[in-house]
């Protein structure tokens, strides 16, 4: 534990920018929205800005990424399969604990299980993460209900907590510890740790006022989903609300579905591209011969909520796949972001009216 005076933040960011591509919260001058994006210069990063509208997952899982390319000459039969190393080292600064937990869900999913996703691993290996404790929740947030905030417990290289005139600089890895030494930071004392605890507790206290009752219902919704007790009418209602736009998946820090396409280029080689995909799209499961085993929209919608709250994460890793960022609620035109779905499940059991 160290102390980083706020006046030294630019020094930290410049140090990182020297050896990494620097990413973090940037306030867009036109819309006023915060975007998690590549910083043209370290001064653009704003650790005090609201939660970014997009998730940092694109830094490990780009929207569009070439994973291979092929050159094949049908006449000479010459074949060249190229796996370029296009991955550059990145430093992510100002990551909130919800988004860090999204990345940890990705780690478990892409690096764990039977096979390792090699492309993802390459991104992750060359990465440094500086998290930022949320000392004040935003209206959409419910990370306390999904056990993913407001303070990052693990998985960061450095965690910063705003203590007023300085940040508490906690290290979570050898990379982080080396950075503290290199920057010549002063050690923090027990009073600083107590100040951090107070800041975190204050933040958790603020959730009481805004994380309304349905949000606390997440664990019970998980339970009902996992035991198969959600009524078909509830799924039908949720399915009817869905516009199949895919926005929820694209803003979600823990959605990782992708498509792979081979695309011929003008120059000759064929690129194997992987792109984001969403289980809400009608063609997602369609097979050759027009056989689509998951045609009704409610079948596709319940896939999302089973994925988030039941099998994909909860069953295997004993935590929900939702990290409580609230972004899906913000973007869903059908008003069926995750909190509202939890509410719908609550209503079906308590019989309460909207």
């Amino acid at each position: 534990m160290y102390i980083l005076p706020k006046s030294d933040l630019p020094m930290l960011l410049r140090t990182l920018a020297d050896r990494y591509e620097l990413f973090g919260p940037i306030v867009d001058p036109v819309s006023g929205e915060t975007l998690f994006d590549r910083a043209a210069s370290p001064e653009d990063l704003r650790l005090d800005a609201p939660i970014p509208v997009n998730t940092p997952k694109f830094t490990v899982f780009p929207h569009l990424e070439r994973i291979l390319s092929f050159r094949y000459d049908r006449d000479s039969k010459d074949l060249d399969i190229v796996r370029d190393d296009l991955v550059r080292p990145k430093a992510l600064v100002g990551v909130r604990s919800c988004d860090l937990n999204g990345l940890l869900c990705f780690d478990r999913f892409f690096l764990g299980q039977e096979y390792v996703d090699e492309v993802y691993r390459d991104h992750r290996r060359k990465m440094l993460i500086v998290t930022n404790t949320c000392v004040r929740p935003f209206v959409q947030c419910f990370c306390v209900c999904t056990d993913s905030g407001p303070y990052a417990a693990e998985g960061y290289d450095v965690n910063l907590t705003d203590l007023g005139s300085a940040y508490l600089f906690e290290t979570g890895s050898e990379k982080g510890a080396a950075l503290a030494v290199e920057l010549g930071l002063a050690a923090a004392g027990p009073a600083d740790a107590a100040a951090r605890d107070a800041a975190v507790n204050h933040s958790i206290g603020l959730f009481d006022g805004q994380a309304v009752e349905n949000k606390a219902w997440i664990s019970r919704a998980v339970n009902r989903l996992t035991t198969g007790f959600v009524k078909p009418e509830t799924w039908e209602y949720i399915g009817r609300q869905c516009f199949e736009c895919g926005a929820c998946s694209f803003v979600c820090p823990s959605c990782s579905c992708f498509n792979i396409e081979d695309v011929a280029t003008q120059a000759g080689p064929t690129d194997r591209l992987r792109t984001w995909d969403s289980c809400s799209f009608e063609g997602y499961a369609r097979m050759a011969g027009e056989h689509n085993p998951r045609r009704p929209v409610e079948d596709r919608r319940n896939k999302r909520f089973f994925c988030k709250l039941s099998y994909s994460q909860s069953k295997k890793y004993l935590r929900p796949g939702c990290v409580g960022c609230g972004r899906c609620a913000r973007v869903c035109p059908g008003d069926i972001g995750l909190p509202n779905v939890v509410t719908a499940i609550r209503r079906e059991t308590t019989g309460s009216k909207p």
Partner: protein
Amino acid sequence: MNDRNPAVITTVPAAAVIEEIRDEIEDVRTYYFRFEDPELERTFAVRSGQFVMCTVFGSGEFAVSLPWSPEADRRHLSVRSVGKVTGALAGLVVGDKIGIRGPFGNGFPFEDIKGKSIIYVAGGIGLIPLRSSIVHVLRHRAEFGRLILLYGARAPKDLMYRETIEGWRGTAGFETYVTIDRPEPGWTGETGFVHTLIEKAKVPVENTVAFVCGPPIMFNAVIQELSGRGLRDDCIISTLERHMKCGLGKCQHCAIGRTLVCTDGPVYTYKQIKTLGEQI
């Protein structure tokens, strides 16, 4: 890394050369191939019931079953030309190269079924994934009870692997029944849908497992018939098909219920299929 497969080609396909192409039935061809890398050619080990991802360079990649038997059988794939990538494959000639990733999936549970009788029920190109298992079982004939193949196709011209089947007919201890949907001039064999053969063959249910593979409509009729005779749901084994992209359990395209066909399947028992809560 993966105890089921000591060496799996995961992300980057391995180059393979097409050595021979045979026309099977309309739109279906069998491609015999060899890996370009001699070491891989020597060591590439598969289990029956698994699949690979096949790249047609310039077009894309698709999932395809392994019809060859793990022991001493030529490597080959049998593919129906239905769309973009399989259509491009059909345009290749001997000497062309394809890419192979795999082998993926769980494979048939041979360890669990030693000593039992096996009924194979296949419809149309459903015989492709079962072929490997049949060749394997015939090589270990003594380890099993009755072995019966019930195979049906729309018409004689739709029967896969006709020479191979003729060979099987002559194999002692292997009962082979072949049917076509409707009578046709020149056809002297059985007619009627494949599930009607279950009665004709007097298939046993005690100490028996059934491998069933074919289009969903045929699958349902066969299941009804077998279950009606008292064959337990966990003794009916099938392979499921899903749209696949990665084969590695990551893209999620092949999700069915709480499982992924590429890593948890493609082989499932009917008992498992019933709990998936989705159409097959």
